[in-house]
Each structure stands twice: as structure tokens, then as C-alpha cells.
């Protein structure tokens, strides 16, 4: 048991105790690493696919969180980049190009250009207008996707084979799982460095007090745009992985619904924490699974929930917005900061 904490004015004794939130984060990552093994033991390959999906959406939400949680730029259009990554893989595959490195290069370069242009336009608007414009642009690309009849239009199209990288075989579900996991961990670490580096401090300063940041001489616009592009590229990579996982590409990936999901996931897990959105993704997608296959034997309610689970999800989103101050993981971090430091 920890001794009673000293009053706030005196310097607190330095505790050599690892904060709870780090345990939680570590446990989560460890659990994710073990899923394929457990899944194999249980003979349920389905879990590998489900958790792969969770990690992909977690990755996208982690990227989105860079601008929403650390930068206070609420983008309601990041699903656009998810879709872009997916289409990059899909369209190239469609035309017979299966080289994973080409997919990656095209997705990242194209995504960077797209995000820079869109980000620059969106950042012309302040506050609420920014949110509305990001939504509008995502919708624009959704309609673009729908109108591309040669790529299936509204229905989308299937991909014959996953991205081919020489040294890994993504066609193996477990291998793909670990690739997704590796990318997720790498991105988390890179963002961890970033938010504590000079760039990250400027971004966080802009969230905290933008007026002061300008008065201190910072290039706030360039920093925000750069952060936007970085977060977009994380979503592009997530989109590439999604296309590989489902072997399917569709404009539905770019719907406003998906952008909204990403925001809920980030808030549910904990804005302004790195791994919070991953926690949020696990919780949200678990909820989706549970609701859409709801059958605890409550008679009519079962079927009602199963058929209209999206409505229940809506209520959950509403409650998250009204009630959650810090998010699930964020609450743990907040409590640690209160008692520890």
C-alpha cells in the first residue's frame, strides 16, 4: 500500500513504482501478441481476423488522435485516408501490380500529396468550420469512389491476392496479423518520440494556447499542417492493411460513419494518450461484435438489438460524449498523474 501522499505544496517523495497505466498498456500489447497462439489452441481462426480488424482501426484512431487529441483539430474526415490506402492497394492489384513495395510507395506519396492539399484548404477554416469541411471533403471522395464504375462503384471490388512483399507472406493470416501488430507498435513508438520532441511540444502548445504560440514565434500553421499529414499517412497505412485483411475495397471505407467511428474510438479510449485509441478500438469493435450477434435469450430484445445494433452503438456514442471526461484508458492515466506525480 502506498503511504499517504504528501500535501501538494511540498515536493512529493519519489516513488519507484511503475504507474498503473503502463501496466495496462503492457498487458494489452502482450495480450495482442498472444492472440494468434490462443486462437490456434482454441481452434478458432475467426479471432485472428477480428483482432486484426481491431488493431487496424486502433492504428487509424491512433493516427487521428495525433491531430484531435494532441492538436485539437477535430477532423471528421479521416476515413478518407483509410479509403485512399485501401484503394491504392486495390487499384494497383486490379491492374496486375501486386508488389507490396509499390503499393506502399504509391499509397504514401499519393497520400502525402492528397493530405497536404486537403489539409491546407481545411486549415483555412477555424473551429467548427474546420470540422464541417473535413466531413465535406471526405464525402466528396466517397462520391468519387462511388462514381468509379470501373472499380465497382458503390459495390466495391475484391482483390485476388494480398500485397506481395518478398520476405513475408501476407496470404497467411497469422503472418498478416503480426505484420499489423508490428506496424502498430512501430507507429506507437514513433508517435511517442514525436509528441515529446520539439515538434510534439509545439503541437500540444497549439492545443493549449494557440494565441501564445504565435506570440512566441512559432510557425503554428506549418506545424498543424504537418501533423495533419502525418496523421493522415497513419490512416493510409491502416487502409492498406485493411484492404489486405478483407481482400476487398469499397467506397464504404470512406463513409462519414467510419470517420465518426474513429472519433468515438479515440474519445472512448482516451484522447491525448497514445495507446488510448487502441483501447477504444478494442472496446468499440468488441461491442459491435457482441451487439450484432446478441443472443443472451431475452426474447424479442435479442432480435431487436441484433437487427438495430447500430442504434445501440449510437446511444453508446451519445453517452460517451456526455459522460466520459477522459476516456477509459485516459481515466487511468489521469488517476496515476493525480496520485503519482
Amino acid at each position: 500500500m502506498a503511504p499517504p501522499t504528501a500535501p501538494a505544496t511540498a515536493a512529493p517523495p519519489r516513488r519507484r513504482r511503475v504507474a498503473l497505466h503502463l501496466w495496462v498498456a503492457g498487458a494489452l500489447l502482450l495480450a495482442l501478441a498472444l492472440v494468434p497462439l490462443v486462437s490456434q489452441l482454441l481452434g478458432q481462426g475467426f479471432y485472428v481476423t477480428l483482432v486484426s480488424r481491431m488493431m487496424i482501426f486502433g492504428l487509424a484512431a491512433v493516427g487521428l488522435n495525433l491531430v484531435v487529441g494532441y492538436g485539437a483539430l477535430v477532423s471528421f474526415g479521416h476515413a478518407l485516408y483509410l479509403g485512399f490506402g485501401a484503394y491504392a492497394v486495390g487499384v494497383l492489384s486490379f491492374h496486375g501490380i501486386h508488389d507490396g513495395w509499390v503499393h506502399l510507395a504509391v499509397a504514401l506519396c499519393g497520400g502525402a500529396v492528397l493530405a497536404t492539399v486537403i489539409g491546407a484548404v481545411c486549415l483555412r477554416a477555424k473551429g467548427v468550420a474546420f470540422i464541417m469541411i473535413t466531413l465535406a471533403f471526405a464525402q466528396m471522395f466517397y462520391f468519387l469512389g462511388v462514381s468509379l464504375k470501373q472499380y465497382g462503384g458503390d459495390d466495391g471490388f475484391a482483390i485476388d491476392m494480398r500485397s506481395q512483399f518478398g520476405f513475408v507472406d501476407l496470404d497467411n493470416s497469422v503472418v498478416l496479423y503480426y505484420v499489423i501488430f508490428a506496424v502498430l507498435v512501430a507507429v506507437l513508438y514513433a508517435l511517442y518520440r514525436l509528441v515529446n520532441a520539439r515538434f510534439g511540444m509545439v503541437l500540444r502548445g497549439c492545443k493549449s494556447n494557440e494565441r501564445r504560440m504565435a506570440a512566441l514565434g512559432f510557425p503554428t500553421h506549418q506545424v498543424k499542417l504537418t501533423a495533419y499529414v502525418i496523421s493522415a499517412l497513419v490512416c493510409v497505412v491502416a487502409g492498406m492493411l485493411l484492404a489486405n485483411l478483407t481482400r476487398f475495397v469499397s467506397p464504404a471505407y470512406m463513409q462519414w460513419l467510419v470517420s465518426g467511428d474513429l472519433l468515438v474510438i479515440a474519445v472512448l479510449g482516451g484522447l491525448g494518450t497514445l495507446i488510448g485509441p487502441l483501447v477504444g478500438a478494442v472496446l468499440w469493435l468488441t461491442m459491435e461484435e457482441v451487439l450484432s450477434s446478441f443472443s443472451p435469450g431475452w426474447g424479442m430484445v435479442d432480435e431487436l438489438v441484433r437487427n438495430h445494433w447500430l442504434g445501440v452503438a449510437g446511444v453508446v456514442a451519445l453517452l460517451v460524449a456526455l459522460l466520459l471526461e477522459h476516456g477509459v484508458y485516459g481515466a487511468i492515466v489521469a488517476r496515476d498523474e493525480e496520485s503519482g506525480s
Partner: protein
Amino acid sequence: MTILSVKGLVKRFGGLVATDHFELDVAPGEIHAIIGPNGAGKTTLINQLSGELLPDEGSIRLDGEEIIHRPVRWRALQGIARSYQITSVFPEFTALQNVMLAVQGASGGSFSFWKPVSSDATLVQPARALLQQVGLGDVASRRVSSLAHGARRQLELAMTMALKPRVMLLDEPMAGMSHQESQEMVRLLQKLKGHYGIVLVEHDMDAVFALADRITVMVYGRPIACGTADAIRNDPEVRRAYLGEQAEAI
């Protein structure tokens, strides 16, 4: 030789003339105080000097160069630093992180993505030194949201100094401070004399008369007198317009 020169500055808000042909000049190392009744337009003036508000007419010259159209960021990088009447710091960060940010702003180099700032000596050392200077060395690792008002005003000052400016615009640095805290702040500002050209907006008359080399009195946006502390104290127009019954107290 002047470091900051303001001539004929005018700012209107609809029918209201907030700044009415204001004039000011500040020599390097001088503390030039601006006093005047509430609503005289002092913060509006500071906002125009810092670049946050665009004047309708007039000229602002920094070391001879016209800067009236320059944006806030340019002025900050060229040596004009301001502090805010209503404390404008970063409450979620520690005192040290606040000053480190200010130091970073002055030094440029925001596009570094990998090295943690906490291990960047070029940010940490100067920040610690500044915190020591303003008397906040002990609370460097404390989150600003947990600091008292007086400490936050000191932090405001430290952040302004971090820009290593040529001109400091101090907007009521002693606002809301207790008598003791104000005296500390006066001692601090006295140490800054000679190093920076300072425009000091203040209501605390003891502080103003203790610190100012020259004083300009501002009423309804106009400068009605400018001179040394003694000259202002004895100026009949000033006594009438501003000091009023308080003249006895001085």
C-alpha cells in the same frame, strides 16, 4: 537613439476611438511606463504593438524599421516579446516545460521529431536559469495549473524574457498580486533595467514610480503627458485627469 518609436497611432472600433494619435518612444534599456485610468485603451495599445491588432493609422518603428504591417510571429522573432494582463501560459505543462517552449520559440527548430525535449540541454539549461531568475526555481517540475496566481505572473515574465527580446511589452505584470508579491516583482524588474527596452503598463503606482525612467499618461486613447516620474507627479493636467485625489497619496 530609440529602439521603439510610435507615432500618430489610431485605432477605431466603429464609432469608438480606442487609440487617438498615440505617440511613444523607448530607448534601449529604458523602462517607459504607460499609466492611465481604466478603459484608457492600454491593452489595445499593447495589442497593436505586439501585432495582434492592426492599427488604422500611424507608424510603429522597431530600431528604425517600420513594422506596422508585420504579423505577430515576425515581431516575436525580431525581438518584440509581450506578457499578458490575463495570464496566458500553458496550464497542462510544468513551469519548466512552459519556459522551455518559450526558449524553443526564440531559437526556431520546431521540426525535430525524434529527440525528447527533456534531454535537450539547449532548451533545459536556459529555461532553468530563467526560472531561477524569476524566483520559480523550486517549482520547475510543478504543473502550472497547480501554481498560485502570483507564481503564474512570474512565469509569464520568465516566458517573455525567454525570447531574448529587444523590447518587452509588459501588460500589468503585477495584476492580482499581493503587496509582497508586487514588491518581489518590482525587484525583479529593476534587475531587468538596462538590458531591455520595456513598455510597462501598470496600475500599481508604487511600482511605476519605483521603476519608470519615463512615464506617459494615457486618457481615452490620447497621450496627455510624457516625462520623468517627478515631472509627471507635478504636472497639473495629469493630477486633474488621472491622479485626482490620489495625488496626496504620492
